[in-house]
């Protein structure tokens, strides 16, 4: 049934329908509305015998789920930003142990400087941890991906992060078709763990592995992701069969046929990008776009197939590999090795900076007409950057960079948008 609902509420409602058994959560903006809602549902007895633990840190939260998942329980948590960094050791551990935990990342920037607004730096910091990472374009997909995530995680015995843009999606009210319990039950089977702590059949989990076998264990983790490349589209199709709508899959393509230039991005900015594509097409530009849903595993083969006739791909990414440039675009370039396709990197939307449709359109035109420097930063305030660089050159004790810039730009929220 269609509801007009906040993204966080839609996700919490959907997660509850997936019948989680243990949730452990630690508050951090902008994830809080999700866990508050789930806490209330557990307390009200709406999620069976589900246990909700208020823990002392994100590290504790994921650690609780590691124990619960190894005990055979379906587990869930949500975090973002610094919280994901704080649980980093456990993030790698959960994947290394092959525990099918599902975690929402309400994507947010990483400090310093502290910033609570959206970008993808947090998920990207954990991209090699062994978790499957799925990015939602809108709140319908954010909700739907959780249903697919539980099935995918448990089928492969591999943890899954569902990444949704903090505030832009978590705090946005829009129309979401919420599933019924019957639909979810038909899609997500009961959890049958591949490993479990069972006094009737004692096993040791988490042994030390030496050089003799470590590489093989890691290969098998990689192989699991290779299998996920097959499972993700299959489960997306199975989802469509039951829920009568398309969600998830490796990627979502928009006007890619006969497109010379393709815009590629993760997450909610794809909405704005699709509007930009429509406008550019109206003006006669042969453009299309690709919304990558699966970032880990990276769908290299599928991407090559989709873009083979294009001349240029412009990757809009909400992250920055400092000292290098693009993270997503680096993966795209690796995937397209040998193909005569130009790949541009546009670093955009850092720390909640809006990505206006007009800027997207201008950047596409600039790339096609003049080319872009690598990497290209969208809508940078060069006056402020040059002022600060000058200040730094003029005096040794030039002071903290962030505060110097704020003095010029003003505090957050004083400009209309």
């Amino acid at each position, binding site marked *: 049934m269609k509801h007009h609902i906040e993204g966080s509420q839609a996700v919490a409602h959907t997660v509850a329908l997936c019948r989680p058994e243990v949730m452990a959560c630690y508050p951090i903006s902008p994830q809080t509305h999700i866990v508050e809602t789930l806490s209330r549902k557990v307390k009200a007895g709406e999620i069976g015998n589900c246990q909700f*633990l*208020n823990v002392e*840190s994100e590290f504790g939260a994921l*650690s609780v789920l590691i*124990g619960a998942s190894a005990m055979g329980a379906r587990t869930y948590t949500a975090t973002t930003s610094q919280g994901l960094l704080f649980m980093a050791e456990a993030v790698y551990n959960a994947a290394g142990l092959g525990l099918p935990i599902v975690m929402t990342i309400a994507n947010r920037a990483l400090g310093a400087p502290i910033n609570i607004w959206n970008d993808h730096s947090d998920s990207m910091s954990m991209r090699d941890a062994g978790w499957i990472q799925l990015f939602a374009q809108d709140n319908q997909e954010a909700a739907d991906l959780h249903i697919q995530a539980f099935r995918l995680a448990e089928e492969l015995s591999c943890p899954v992060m569902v990444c949704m843009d903090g505030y832009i999606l978590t705090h946005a009210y829009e129309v979401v078709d919420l599933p019924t319990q019957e639909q979810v039950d038909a899609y997500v089977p009961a959890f049958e763990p591949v490993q479990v*702590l069972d*006094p009737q059949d004692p096993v040791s989990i*988490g*042994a*030390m592995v030496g050089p003799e076998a470590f590489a093989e264990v890691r290969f098998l983790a990689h192989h699991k992701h290779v299998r996920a490349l097959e499972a993700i589209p299959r489960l997306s199709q199975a989802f469509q069969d039951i829920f009568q709508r398309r969600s998830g899959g490796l990627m979502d393509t928009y006007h890619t046929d006969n497109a010379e230039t393709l815009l590629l991005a993760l997450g909610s900015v794809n909405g704005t990008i699709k509007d930009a594509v429509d406008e550019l097409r109206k003006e006669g530009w042969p453009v299309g776009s690709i919304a990558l849903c699966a970032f880990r595993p990276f769908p290299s083969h599928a991407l090559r197939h989709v873009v083979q006739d294009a001349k240029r791909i412009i990757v809009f990414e909400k992250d920055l590999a400092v000292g290098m440039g693009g993270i997503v675009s680096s993966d795209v370039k690796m995937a397209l090795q040998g193909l005569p396709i130009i790949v541009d990197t546009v670093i955009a939307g850092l720390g909640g900076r809006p990505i206006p449709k007009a800027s997207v359109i201008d950047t596409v035109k600039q790339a096609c007409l003049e080319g872009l420097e690598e990497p290209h930063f969208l809508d940078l305030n060069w006056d402020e950057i040059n002022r600060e660089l000058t200040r730094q050159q003029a005096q040794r004790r030039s002071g903290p960079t962030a505060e110097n810039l704020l003095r010029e730009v003003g505090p957050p929220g004083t400009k209309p948008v």
Partner: protein
Amino acid sequence: MSYQRVKFYQTGTFTVGNRLLDESDRTVQARMDRTNSLNAGHRACQGCGEALGARYALDAVMRATRQQMVAVNATGCLEVFSSPYPESAWQIPWMHSLFGNAPAVASGVAAALRAKGRTDVRVIAQGGDGATVDIGFGCLSGMFERNDDVLYICYDNEAYMNTGVQRSGSTPPRAWTNTTQAVGTNPGNPMGIGKNLPRIAMAHGIPYVATASVADLHDLEAKVTKAMSIRGARYIHIHVPCPLGWKSDPAHTIKVARLAVESGLFPLFEAEGGEVTDRTPIRKKVSVEQYLELQGRFKHLFHPRDERALETIQAIADANIHRYQLLPLKA
């Protein structure tokens, strides 16, 4: 040639047992009806107090739970020597995740059991002093504060032994470690700092806190058994000498542990709901010197003799004796 029959004076006692002996010569521990959580063949050093303590503690849990138990282990010596791939010494469902998260992982196991409505299976978590008083302290405090149904056992050998003897928050004053060397004007670990975790555990008001020592395995077993009769967060802190890190004779592990107890440096007590309810009186009080001089980590206190340090350490022991009333009050 005549053979002299060996007399096993430990026959029928609760000391460490050997199942290769005739049934009639075995200790209680070596009887076949006793459980065996930690198999022979693990890779602990000779005279390892932690291996001994862990085996007795977990065997007691196995008996108390009729083998319906799960153990979570922090990273550390115990984890490493018991679980080199593919040889696990554990006869119970056992899990190792990280150095600093064993209490939280155990909370998760307990939560899963609650979710599944299983009250028959119990969970314990265990770690060394580094995992407990330092890196895992936050998770441990959280587990206490939520009163999760977990027994946490700390095997305290008073330093980071797994990484080669570095100081922990549990390292005693003046002890040598590889990060508190016996050099300079104040050799060894500084005086007056560190953490007393049993008292911190008591401050959480959890149902049960106890200290135990491998010097008194019967007492250790009794405390673990009692802990398993209680629901909620429970904490047992076991003193386990480490011959490697303490530079003591592997044959002296029990002796060293006993001197720690008899000197008052490691008081044995139980506390319920934050209040001390029982203590093990010192049978024959010894000076701290007798304890310290058996350990190379305190050698610098005697060559040359550091009277002030010895007096200060004695004062710590005397304060313990007073606080926990370990000696009968003089008339």
